[in-house]
C-alpha cells in the first residue's frame, strides 16, 4: 500500500470582489431558521421621578405614586424594544397582560 504524499497546504489569496446583484447571497427570511431563539420579555408597568435626596430618605413602607392611571395600558418589551401594549390583569393568583395593541416595528 502506497503511503500518502504529505505536502504543505497552499491556500489561494482572497480579495474582495464587487457583489453581483444576481448572485447576491441572502438567507431566506424564514422564521423557521430562528424560531427557537429565546428572547427576553418584560413589561413596564409604570414610572416616576424622584430626587436623589428623596431617594436616599426612602424607608420601607413609604408609598410612591406613579404617573400612570390604574386603567392605563402597560407596554410590553422584547429585548428592551416596545412591541405591544396591553391591560394589566390578574390571572388566577398571578399578574398578566391582555394584549390590546401591537406596536408597529
Amino acid at each position: 500500500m502506497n503511503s500518502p504524499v504529505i505536502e504543505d497546504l497552499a491556500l489561494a489569496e482572497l480579495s474582495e470582489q464587487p457583489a453581483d446583484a444576481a448572485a447576491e447571497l441572502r438567507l431566506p427570511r424564514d422564521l423557521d431558521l430562528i424560531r427557537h431563539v429565546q428572547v427576553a420579555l418584560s413589561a413596564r408597568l409604570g414610572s416616576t421621578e424622584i430626587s436623589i435626596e428623596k431617594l436616599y430618605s426612602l424607608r420601607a413602607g413609604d408609598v410612591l405614586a406613579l404617573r400612570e392611571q390604574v386603567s392605563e395600558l402597560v407596554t410590553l418589551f422584547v429585548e428592551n424594544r416596545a412591541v405591544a401594549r396591553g391591560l394589566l390583569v390578574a390571572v388566577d393568583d398571578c399578574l398578566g397582560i391582555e394584549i390590546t395593541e401591537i406596536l408597529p416595528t
Partner: protein
Amino acid sequence: MRYLYRYAGVRRLEYARRHVDDALAGWSADWRVDHANEPVQARWQVADAATVDCLAGDDPAGLERMDDTLYLRTAAAAWRRAVFGSAASGLPDDPLACALLAQARAALVSALARKPAGSAPADANTNANAPTSAAQRPVAGRAWLYAGLFHAGRDEPFLQLLLDARRFDAALATPPPVALTPRALAVRNATLPLTLQLPLDSVSAADLQHLRPGVIVQSRHRLDEPLLLGCDTQPRLLRAFLGQRKGRLAVRLDSVAAARTTATESASAASPSSTPETARR
C-alpha cells in the same frame, strides 16, 4: 483640663472609627454568616480555635508565643492584623495595650457568637443562651477604645481617659450626623427616573408570532409578591408592592433589591426554555 482630655479623646475615637469600623464590621459579619447555623457554644469554640490558629502560625516558637498571647502577655501582630486590619498594626506590645486587647477580644468574640440578622430562626440549641446585654454591645465601641490607644501613643493621662469605657460609651451613643460633601449637596435635587418592571419569562421567536390583541401573556409573578423598581443603570433598585392611590398606580416600598430574590425570577433563571402561558380571551 478634664474637658480638654475628653474633647481630644472623642476626636481621636472619631478618627479611629473611620479606620477600624469598616474592616472590623466586614470581618465579623463574614464570620457570623459562615457559622450562622452552629450552636452558640460551637461558634465560641470555633472563634477561639481560629484565634489560636492565627496566633500559632508556622512560627517554631508559636506554642510559646500563643501561650503568652492567650494569657495576654503579648499582643500578637498576626491576630491584630486578622481582626483589626492594618489600622491597628502599630499597637505597642506593652501591658496596657494587652489589657485593651483583652477587652476588644472579649467584645469581638461575643459579637461573633451573635446570630446574624436575617438568618434562619434560632433552634433550641442555637443562640438559646444569647449573650448578655453587655456582651451584645457593638464591638466597634471597644475597637474604638483599642484604636484610640494606638493613636494616642503613650500619653499617660490620655490613656487613663481612654480606659474609662463608660465615659466613652456615653460619648459614642450619639454618633455625629454624616455631613454631605459639597458634591453630594450639588446633586441632591437632581431627579432620577424610576420604572416599575414586571419580569416575564423568555419566549421563543416563534411564540412572538402568536402575539396579537386578545392574547393574555401570563406571568408567574404572584399578586402578593413585590415588583422591581429601578432605573436604566440599576433596574433592580428597590422591591415594592403594587397598588393604587387616588386612581393612579402606586407602590409601597418593601426592601432594597440587591439580588435575585423572588420565586418567579429564580424559576425563570432556572428554566430558560420555558415560555409564558398564553390564552385567547
